[in-house]
């Protein structure tokens, strides 16, 4: 049967075009790939190549015709052994291809409503592990807690390894990987060249092959060189592969302001990464959470962004001495109970929030302090139940305010607890400037305990 050549769509948005020129005449032989016509759109002139072989039977749309709709038959091609007499047999213009609706949808056919998106799933986190009464508590620095978490997981699973700049022989730029090379050897504790984009990509590729890399960035500021691999390769591949190919990987390192290192070394990336579906984002404050959440992150089958804080590395805390202390991802912690106002923070912001709560208590205001610990998935439930109790909320973060994590928390409170609010949610954040170097300006650019106290009093109308 003769084959119809249809007016092709040459771009995703093309609806019609002009048939500028025929390059083959009726009766001419055509091979697959021959250019048979030129088509003009408002953007360009393009060539139409034949995809079938035979003889050009009849030109249906003469050259010079404007506004030919996509899918209009423009010519017929006769296959071997066919002649002009067969042209009558050419099929009528085929209906544009459209997926057949699934059977169940067909039954209730009339006026099709626009397809509504299904409800988004809600992440439910497991409760914190039971720490039996009488469990011995070990006082250690956050640096040690992180190291122990990695060492325990590397002992447990031979597929876990760590790579990054100065993680092996130097023992970690911030000494977080101290002793790992000695215990696990150079095969699993790997010094990389200074090449963030490259080694992040190699880590993701190794994870796609089934290994469980821990990729250390000397600071998250340098990870901007690697952000394409983190987002486009690590976060999106599971979805793009229809669930076939995932990526179990932890990207970790110090995030946010340290001290006097200025704008390029002092950015908080919590909001950036927390926007991306496919990533989990963790930013703990206490030593126990650093350990328990890093262990959870290494075991998690998804890409995890683990944001540490350089200033906190040397802080000490109590870590339960348990054989396997794992804190679930996605669960906030009530660091201090109170009834008057809810302070919501994470990572370094917690130090301002907790000190502010002490100050407020002196003035008779009982603040409830929530440590989010995980930024994505966010534990909305813990926030909302607290706000329903207090009616007032202040967020505290070192990052910038616009489109920040505090903005997200405020929006969720507005959506889920609007009727319970006695005052607008208020944000205390880093100032809207690149981080200055001068000591006094740097101090001004960061949040302060006084600002948190003032905000809490303002929402309490005191």
């Amino acid at each position: 049967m003769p084959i119809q050549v249809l007016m092709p769509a040459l771009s995703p948005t093309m609806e019609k075009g002009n048939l500028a020129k025929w390059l083959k005449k009726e009766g001419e032989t055509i091979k697959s790939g021959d250019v048979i016509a030129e088509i003009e759109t408002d953007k360009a002139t393009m060539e139409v190549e034949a995809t079938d072989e035979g003889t050009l039977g009849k030109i249906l749309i003469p050259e010079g015709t404007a506004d030919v709709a996509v899918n209009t038959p423009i010519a017929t091609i006769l296959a071997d052994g066919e002649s002009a007499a067969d042209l009558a047999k050419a099929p009528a213009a085929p209906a544009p291809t459209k997926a057949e609706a699934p059977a169940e949808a067909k039954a209730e056919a009339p006026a099709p409503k626009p397809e509504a998106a299904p409800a988004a799933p809600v992440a439910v986190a497991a409760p914190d592990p039971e720490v039996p009464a009488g469990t011995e508590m070990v006082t250690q620095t956050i640096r040690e807690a992180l190291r122990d978490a990695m060492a325990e997981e590397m002992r447990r699973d031979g597929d876990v390894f760590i790579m990054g700049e100065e993680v092996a022989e130097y023992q970690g730029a911030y000494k977080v990987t101290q002793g790992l090379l000695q215990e696990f050897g150079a095969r699993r504790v790997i010094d990389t060249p200074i090449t963030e984009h490259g080694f992040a990509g190699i880590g993701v590729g190794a994870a796609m092959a089934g290994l469980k890399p821990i990729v250390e960035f000397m600071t998250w500021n340098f990870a901007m060189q690697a952000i394409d691999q983190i987002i486009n390769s690590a976060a999106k591949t599971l979805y793009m592969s229809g669930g076939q190919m995932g990526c179990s990987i932890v990207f970790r390192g110090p995030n946010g302001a340290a001290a006097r290192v200025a704008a390029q070394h002092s950015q908080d990336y919590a909001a950036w990464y927390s926007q991306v579906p496919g990533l989990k984002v963790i930013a703990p404050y206490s030593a126990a959470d650093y350990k328990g959440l890093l262990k959870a992150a290494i075991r998690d089958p998804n890409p995890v962004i683990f944001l540490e804080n350089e200033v906190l590395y040397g802080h000490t805390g109590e870590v339960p001495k348990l054989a396997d202390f794992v804190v679930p991802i996605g669960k906030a912690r009530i660091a201090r109970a109170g009834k008057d106002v809810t302070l919501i923070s994470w990572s370094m912001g917690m130090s301002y929030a907790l000190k502010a709560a002490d100050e407020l208590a002196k003035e008779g205001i009982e603040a409830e302090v929530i440590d989010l610990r995980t930024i994505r998935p966010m534990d909305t439930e813990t926030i909302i139940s607290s706000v329903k109790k207090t009616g007032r909320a202040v967020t505290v973060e070192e990052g910038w305010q616009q489109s920040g994590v505090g903005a997200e928390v405020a929006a969720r409170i507005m959506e889920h607890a609007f009727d319970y609010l006695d005052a607008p949610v208020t944000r205390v954040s880093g100032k809207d400037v690149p981080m200055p170097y001068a000591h006094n300006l740097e101090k001004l650019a960061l949040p302060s305990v006084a600002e948190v106290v003032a905000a809490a009093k303002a929402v309490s109308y005191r």
Partner: protein
Amino acid sequence: MAAAPKKSVAKEAGQEKASSPPEFTRDQELQALRDMLLIRRFEEKAGQLYGMGAIGGFCHLYIGQEAVVVGMQMALKHGDEVITGYRDHGHMLACGMEAKGVMAELTGRRGGYSKGKGGSMHMFSMEKHFYGGHGIVGAQVSLGTGLAFANRYRGNDNVSVTYFGDGAANQGQVYESFNMAELWKLPVIYVIENNRYAMGTAVARASAQQDFSKRGASFNIPGRQVDGMDVRAVKAAADEATAWCRGGNGPMILEMQTYRYRGHSMSDPAKYRTREEVEKVRHDQDPIEQVRNRLLAEKVSEQDLKAIDAEVRDIVNAAADFAQHDPEPDPSELYTDVYR
């Protein structure tokens, strides 16, 4: 019928070509012909379906470059990994992925390799060791190096075959990966498919060093220039490179000198090269015609070749039919596969 090649892409670019590659057995010739034809017919059909509006978005066809993936694949063993960029349909078919599943992904249907969520540039098959299908130019080079890292970590003898184009060869992460691959002796073959144009930019307009086999020189990575239009030359180069990698010698670069007949994507105005240039390569060097002519010279009958044609057309037509009738993904799939 095209004549036997008179002038190779390699020679035209002013480079020396190795002497004639080893002959194929008749079975190898027939296999190569069939596998290249499948890719060509598949791509022609994809172009047609795109024109009909059944395939959306971007669609980058592999027509003209078939000998590269087919020749490489003939040298690989089970377990070797393959990863490439966005012009990936040919690689998937060469890896043995089913035409139906690939075509249904192009039309965004539930029977596609990614359940319709990935599209032309994002398909994967763990079963066939095909790791994508990546849409960010050059990103697959670091990822492919990571696959090789995993082979080394596990101590197996698999090789990662990492494909990218002459355009991607100018991305920075390519050289970061070269450095680490050689430093750590990772078993990775970097196959640079030099089809002479990065979208619309000719190699000479974008590349200070146009001999891509030398792009690893400052990392001590050996490289070869290969006539990528001759499937036998590709296979011979692949044999050398796989042996090099499996021998623990680290990476190797193969520059495949090839040519893309079609536009960069479907909406390519093709103003950066002449129709005559395209016609000349097609006429003189077509990878499929080369094999067909050799087979005819060896007294394989036209009829036998037509039977291969027919088999391939049946596969492609069945794939196109499936891809147009398979339902779209169920709405409930919107939120699946974000996390596992």
